[in-house]
């Protein structure tokens, strides 16, 4: 059976106007295979074009290996090329349509899950996070990160023309030589990130379908960053080293017996002094780099940001390391801290 976009002579390069069912079908399949970030609206725009080019890159280059140490993909996308795709820069054509249809119809190629009731599923997911008594990492940080990572949505919520109800996905394109190439993908509520594609069936079951599993993975990941990438042993957070060169790693100001331990982060965030960060503010005292807007974060002006150095724990530093170590990770850190304060305000309003 042919897919709706397998139409002789149908070529899409972003110049076509108006939505169509063929494009909607194409977007749905690109979404299921993890090439389109979000939006199934039937209009072939720049986002769809980038998704197509990312797939073309993979058909030529993706042999199933990981860019990191998280194991190989279950299949090699390049095996589905069969000599049909030789050029990354082109748009959608019938050769690509054939490859895409092959990928979709092969049950060995994992597809991303979607929800019948994303609203209810997301609510259940957040409730599960809040009730997690896991002392691995402080859940308020996880919640604040979920807002930043996925707008607290494990599944996309369809609205208007957009029928997207797949698991939320974040696409990183960090290969300067191949700007359309997707280098890693974060999935779901906590945007747990993997560096091979497609994900293995076991991974889909463990943290892509199940939001609680997804968050548990995020907890473990955040804790690992805390334990290994703030003061070592794997790496040192440069902001932490500049601001607390003397202190040993601090888990929480409250003792084990205190119920606020690893749980009252929103109050801590609301009670520390705040700082104002503007375009050009050094990333930390003594840093040669400063806060600047970029593609991902168009503004570099933040008011009343809780001062990370005034926290009596090192989770603000770990939260940044969850996102990496570059300029973006500082934007990320600022937003997490702001989210903590906003969440406190929101929960205060609710009371």
């Amino acid at each position, binding site marked *: 059976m042919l897919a709706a976009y397998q139409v002789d002579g149908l070529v899409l390069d972003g110049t076509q106007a108006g939505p169509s069912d063929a494009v909607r079908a194409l977007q749905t399949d690109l979404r299921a295979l993890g090439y389109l970030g979000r939006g199934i609206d039937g209009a072939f725009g720049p986002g769809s074009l980038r998704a197509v080019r990312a797939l073309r890159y993979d058909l030529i280059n993706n042999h199933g290996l990981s860019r990191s140490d998280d194991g190989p993909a279950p299949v090699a996308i390049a095996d589905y090329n069969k000599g049909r795709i030789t050029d990354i820069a082109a748009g959608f054509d019938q050769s690509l349509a054939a490859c895409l249809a092959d990928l979709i119809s092969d049950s060995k190629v994992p597809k991303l899950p979607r929800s019948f009731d994303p609203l209810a599923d997301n609510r259940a997911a957040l409730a599960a996070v809040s009730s997690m008594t896991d002392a691995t990492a402080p859940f308020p940080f996880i919640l604040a990160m979920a807002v930043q990572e996925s707008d607290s949505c494990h599944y996309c919520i369809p609205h208007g023309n957009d029928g997207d109800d797949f698991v939320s996905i974040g696409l990183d394109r960090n290969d300067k030589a191949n700007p359309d190439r997707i280098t890693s993908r974060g999935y779901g509520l906590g945007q747990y990130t993997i560096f091979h594609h497609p994900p293995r069936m076991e991974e889909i079951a463990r943290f892509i379908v199940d939001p609680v599993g997804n968050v548990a993975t995020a907890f473990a990941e955040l804790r690992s960053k805390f334990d290994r990438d703030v003061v070592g042993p794997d790496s040192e957070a440069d902001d932490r080293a*500049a*601001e*607390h*060169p*003397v*202190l*040993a790693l*601090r888990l929480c*100001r409250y003792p084990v017996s205190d119920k606020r331990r690893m749980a009252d982060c929103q109050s801590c965030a609301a009670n520390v*002094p705040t700082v104002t960060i503007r375009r050009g503010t050094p990333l930390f*005292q003594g840093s040669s780099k400063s806060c600047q807007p970029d593609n991902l974060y168009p503004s570099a002006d933040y008011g009343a940001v809780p*001062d990370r*150095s*005034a*926290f*009596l*724990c090192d989770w603000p530093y770990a939260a940044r390391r969850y996102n990496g170590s570059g300029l973006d990770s500082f934007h990320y850190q600022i937003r997490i801290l702001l989210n903590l304060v906003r969440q406190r305000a929101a929960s205060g309003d609710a009371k």
Partner: protein
Amino acid sequence: MTNLWTILNVAIGLALTYLVLSLVATAIQEGIAAVFRLRAATLKSGLASLLADPGSKKPQLDPFFVSVFGHGLVQRISSKGAPSYVPARNITLALLDVLKDGSQANEFTAIERAVAELPPSPIRQSLSVLMNEASGDIDVLKTRVDKWIDDSMDRISGTYKRNVQITMLAVGFVIACGFNVDSLHVAKSLWAPEANSKIVQTATNFLARHPAAGKKNDPGQGPVSGSQTDQDPAADLIAAKAAFADALDEVSSLPIPIGWKDFLLGDPKESKESKDSKDSNVPKDPNAPKGFFFILARLFEALPGWIMTALAISLGAPFWFDLLQGLINLRATGPKPPRADSPETPGDNKQRSTS
């Protein structure tokens, strides 16, 4: 029969003697401390050893020490010259302020960065431990540093007290020799019935005239403190002079044999015995010329008594004041001297006293 009360009276006489002499010694010691600014010097060297890098050849020129010691909070209290008393809290605040050095970062971070930049030294080590205990909380850090400075100041005070005691011992020996206060000789003279019966009254009168002699005359007050105020050394010197004159008056009015007048007569009893038994090698007339060896022998005879006196003086006025008061109180519970006319003495004491 030797009455127990006679012994008590002798003890009271000795305690009174030592108290008065301690007051003289204290005045002299205070004078020396004022002239040489010993408190200020001890405070400065104590703080230098706390704050300076021990590797530096001149700890008092160590830049970190100089900036803390020169801080307004440390210096401002003193009217002139180096301070001799500084509240520990001020040192804490000065120390943290120097570390913070006007940084815009949050206080704890600013201090932490400064500590990290200090050369490896005990001060850096101590502050690092205190910072880790505080775990980022500036208020906890201030409390911990306060406590630490307090303890260090106690040690500095201890050093000062030890130095004072050594000075007191030296001064005590000079006084013992200077006034020829031979403890053994004094004790013997106090056995004599006349001196023995008078001494309690003398002591009581002395205590009535100097109710706080033991309290304000503690020379061991170190260069520390919350309540003490920093005084001008010149004022200290004037006070020491006045105390000295006062104490000298008291010494001259003591009904005990001190001074050089009768030195060469030796012990009154002994000289009597020797006069009886032997042909007189001990001259009766103090003005008669003496042989060199005789004088030397007398000096050796007096030496143990002088040493005892010096050791007693080094214990300080507060010690003797308390002891004297205790002995007088003990005396008050016992038989009254015949002429005692104290209506406040409870009657039952009087009854028991007949035993």
